[in-house]
């Protein structure tokens, strides 16, 4: 059991760090602010949770505190990215020319009409 837990923790750590790297790469490569929020929020949330799980496997005594940190991130990160995306949309941020549909703008136009 002990011999299995440590390699599992290492693999989880590397997987989490890979997702963090992919999030950073998406932040650099994506064309507009909404795509960047998408890449930055989701990939890094998964990456941090996997990293914390890996550390919990390597140091089982810290599992409770790591679970608390993970729960905070799981609850607050999607919320904050949503608030930021709403602020950007209301502020009229530029969309990529590849954007096909914008349901929120359609809804707002429908309310006014």
């Amino acid at each position, binding site marked *: 059991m002990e011999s299995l837990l440590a390699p599992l923790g290492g693999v989880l750590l590397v997987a989490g760090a890979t997702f963090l790297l992919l999030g950073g790469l998406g932040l650099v490569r994506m064309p507009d602010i909404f795509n960047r929020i998408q890449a930055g929020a989701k990939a890094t949330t998964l990456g941090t949770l996997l990293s914390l799980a890996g550390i919990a496997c390597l140091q089982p005594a810290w599992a409770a505190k790591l679970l608390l940190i993970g729960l905070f991130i799981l609850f607050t990160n999607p919320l904050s990215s949503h608030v930021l995306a709403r*602020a*950007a949309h209301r*502020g*009229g*941020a*530029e969309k990529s020319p590849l954007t096909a549909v914008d349901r929120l703008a359609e809804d707002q136009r429908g309310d006014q009409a």
Partner: protein
Amino acid sequence: MNSMSPLILGLSVLLCVTLIGAALVAIRATRLPIAILAAGLVSLIASILFLVLAAPDVAMTEAAIGSGLTTFLFFFVLARVRGAEKDGDELAGDELAGVKHDGVGK
């Protein structure tokens, strides 16, 4: 002087590069919200560096006051000032869609 492990040394060098980059943005930004954000980023990296130097209490104080309270306080005051000077010309609007003028000065 005790020797650092090469991993922690490399991580510290990366953190120092990030710290200097954020400080340069804080100095050269022409719009106030960006400068405040960059100052918060400097606090974040500084508190991680305090942890590298094995001072968790200092790092926690820096996290709560430097990165948290100061940033919030600056934004509250900035909103107050902007409300008081409705006709003011110094705080240019259009911060979100400010693609035309880059915030970092040339």
